[in-house]
């Protein structure tokens, strides 16, 4: 258990630091690269929770596809590659954001402490990828088909929106 705790707190520290950089850094490309660290950390957390299949999907979809999409979006909108000063809202909005974030964090911490106290979440079950496949295609087959239609609709919608005519 000790090794797991050490790995968890290391990952958590890296993830929180990179997430803070994502929302504060003055360079869009750097923000995307810090986002890679957060996504990889989330994949590591999934492995700690014994969810290897979701961890692999996380790496494939988030780091492999969504990040590339973000970098394409950055390039196509000719975002300033160097530092820029117009990425943030004025100080009033930033203060409002910090206030709402801190308030929400306080609320969530109070709820978590009230509900769980010092309960440690330890992954005590073993799930194989085959079990997830069976669950998807037996219990969740209708949501699965709906999601595939949604993906198709999003694909067609993105093409229709972005094409020039």
């Amino acid at each position: 258990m000790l090794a797991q705790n050490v790995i968890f707190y290391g990952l958590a520290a890296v993830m929180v630091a990179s997430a803070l950089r994502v929302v504060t850094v003055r360079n869009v490309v750097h923000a995307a690269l810090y986002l890679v660290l957060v996504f990889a950390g989330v994949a590591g957390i999934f492995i700690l929770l014994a969810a290897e299949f979701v961890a692999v999907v996380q790496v494939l979809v988030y780091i492999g596809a969504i990040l590339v999409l973000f970098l394409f979006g950055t390039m196509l909108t000719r975002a300033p590659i160097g530092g820029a000063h117009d990425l943030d809202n004025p100080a009033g909005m930033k203060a409002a954001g910090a206030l709402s974030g801190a308030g929400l964090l306080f609320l969530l911490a109070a709820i978590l402490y009230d509900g769980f106290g010092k309960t440690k979440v330890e992954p005590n079950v073993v799930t194989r990828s085959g079990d997830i496949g069976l669950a998807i295609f037996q219990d969740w087959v209708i949501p699965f088909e709906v999601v595939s239609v949604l993906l198709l609709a999003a694909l067609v919608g993105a093409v229709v929106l972005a094409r020039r005519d």
Partner: protein
Amino acid sequence: MQFLALAAVLFCIGVYGVVARRNAVLVLMSIELILNSVNINLIALGAWRGFSEAIVGQVFALFVITVAAAEVGVGLAIVLLIYRNRASIDLSEVAQMRG
């Protein structure tokens, strides 16, 4: 519990990013932070509850990942369209979308 706390911290950082950023691409990145924290919650609570809940949590996390991919695709297409029309992706300049 420690996983839920990490997810809560990531969620709040994402909320701050959505409010404080003005660049549309960075706002989308903050939304991805929020979705990832929700995925951590789903899988941690499932692993804590038991076998069938763990499976359900992982299936839901997979659905969330899929919907996030669709959302980013459409979102970036909209951002591209805004950039083409206004030569800027500054969200404070998209004020004509106000009702």
